[in-house]
């Protein structure tokens, strides 16, 4: 029996009575108390997630930007110092290997934060690409990460590191000194709320986890697991690699063309995407809002229009905030217009839904 990987906070989760599940090869908390309670906490107060399972790959050197521009779809030249950018790593056929965030920690110093299930695959692939004066380092084993998310997250953060939130604009990353040593904090997240992702040494993670929970408890901060993480990101239509993205899905089909810079002379997968762009995409990713009262939509359920199968759901849930079914689906491009009525087949019954504009939920301001 192969054993699952554990984050530095694993024993803390177990001691807290969290329900543990396998995720991408890791033994992770899916919930501490209730997924609905944890979801609500992030929307109304604050939640703390262990995201140490994610990978951190350093790209450092004078040719870092050149390398990133060849390796990834987005334009790394646009990332200011202390800035960040969502980008995608493709294979030669234009299919998605991984989606990730690029953080600029120095003039020539970039940190890629990648999905937990793809760390080694991403690192090995990046190492095969021509990379001039660039050093690549997989720092995942020594780096831990926590996500502090919600309207009250800035208040909690500032109680730990005074004035930190006012120094961080949206999507910025900066280094801070703290009572747990040096940390890098980014104003990014996967929930659609204001929030922070804290990168620290693995050895400091438990101290920071307990510190933040202690400081935030009075204001409603609770630890949250992967269950709430999924319902939160789904409400804001963020893709999940393995569902909305994968080797058989291009960023154009996935609706992520905004993060592909075709003006770059070349990047891995460009040729295939150019062909697809010219020929027209056969499928498109859409957001489905189901009529209330139906069973929860889930990944894999068929989508029909006028009785004809037009695709299937890549993710789905009963939205805790909207109290109705929501889903992301890949459907025939000819049927993908916003406003179209479709049916989702759930256990032999047809639940009506509409294709709607993303996102399902937008936070106030």
């Amino acid at each position: 029996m192969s054993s699952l990987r554990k984050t530095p906070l694993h024993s803390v989760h177990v001691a807290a009575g969290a329900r543990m599940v396998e995720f991408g090869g890791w033994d992770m908390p899916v919930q501490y108390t209730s997924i609905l309670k944890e979801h609500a906490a992030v929307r109304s107060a604050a939640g703390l997630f262990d995201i140490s399972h994610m990978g951190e790959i350093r790209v450092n050197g004078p040719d870092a930007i050149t390398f990133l521009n060849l390796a990834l779809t987005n334009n790394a030249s646009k990332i200011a110092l202390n800035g960040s950018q969502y980008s995608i790593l493709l294979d030669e056929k234009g299919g998605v290997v991984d989606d990730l965030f690029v953080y600029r920690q120095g003039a020539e110093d970039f940190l890629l934060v990648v999905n937990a299930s793809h760390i080694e695959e991403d690192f090995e692939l990046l190492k095969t690409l021509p990379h001039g004066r660039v050093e690549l380092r997989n720092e995942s084993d020594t780096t831990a990460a926590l996500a502090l998310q919600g309207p009250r997250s800035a208040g909690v953060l500032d109680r730990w590191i005074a004035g930190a939130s006012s120094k961080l604009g949206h999507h910025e990353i900066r280094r801070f000194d703290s009572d747990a040593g040096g940390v890098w904090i980014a104003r990014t997240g996967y929930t659609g709320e204001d929030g922070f992702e804290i990168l620290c040494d693995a050895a400091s993670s438990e101290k920071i986890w307990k510190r933040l929970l202690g400081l935030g408890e009075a204001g409603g901060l609770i630890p949250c697991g992967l269950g709430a993480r999924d319902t939160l990101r789904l409400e804001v239509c963020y893709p999940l690699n393995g569902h909305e993205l994968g080797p058989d899905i291009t960023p154009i089909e996935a609706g992520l063309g905004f993060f592909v810079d075709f003006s770059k002379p070349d990047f891995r997968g460009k040729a295939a995407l150019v062909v697809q762009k010219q020929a027209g995409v056969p499928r498109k990713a859409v957001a489905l809002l189901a009529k209330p009262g139906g069973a929860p939509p889930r990944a894999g359920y068929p989508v029909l229009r006028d009785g004809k199968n037009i695709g299937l759901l890549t993710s789905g849930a009963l939205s805790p905030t909207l109290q109705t079914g929501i889903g992301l689906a890949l459907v025939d491009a000819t049927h993908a217009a916003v406003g179209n009525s479709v049916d989702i087949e759930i256990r032999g019954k047809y639940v009506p839904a509409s294709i709607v504009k993303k996102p399902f939920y937008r936070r106030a301001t």
Partner: protein
Amino acid sequence: MNIPEELRYAESHEWARVEGDSATVGITDHAQAELTDVVFVELPKVGQKIEVGKNCAVVESVKAASDIYAPLSGEVTAVNEEVAKNPALVNTDPYGKGWFFKVKLANASEVGNLKTASGYRTLIGK
């Protein structure tokens, strides 16, 4: 773990409150604690014939859909509209307001095949 003495229990964690030739059916406190947040309940239809051990309803948590198996055979005489509208009742009151349906028993001897409270307690190790 709440396991009322007057109920009978299936190994698949449904309970039955038998009253004469009729029974009310739901899922146990143990089952709802395993599921956590119940977000949807699909009930059988009134008039539907159900057969012991066959799936007759569905209860869904955030992460998964679970089949509910008929603990006894018969005809469904009533379903709980309240739990359909407010699935969280399964979590908060699994033996009371969280009931699923009532069934007119086809074969009262099947009751003898269900576990008593102490038998169910042994089964779940609590």
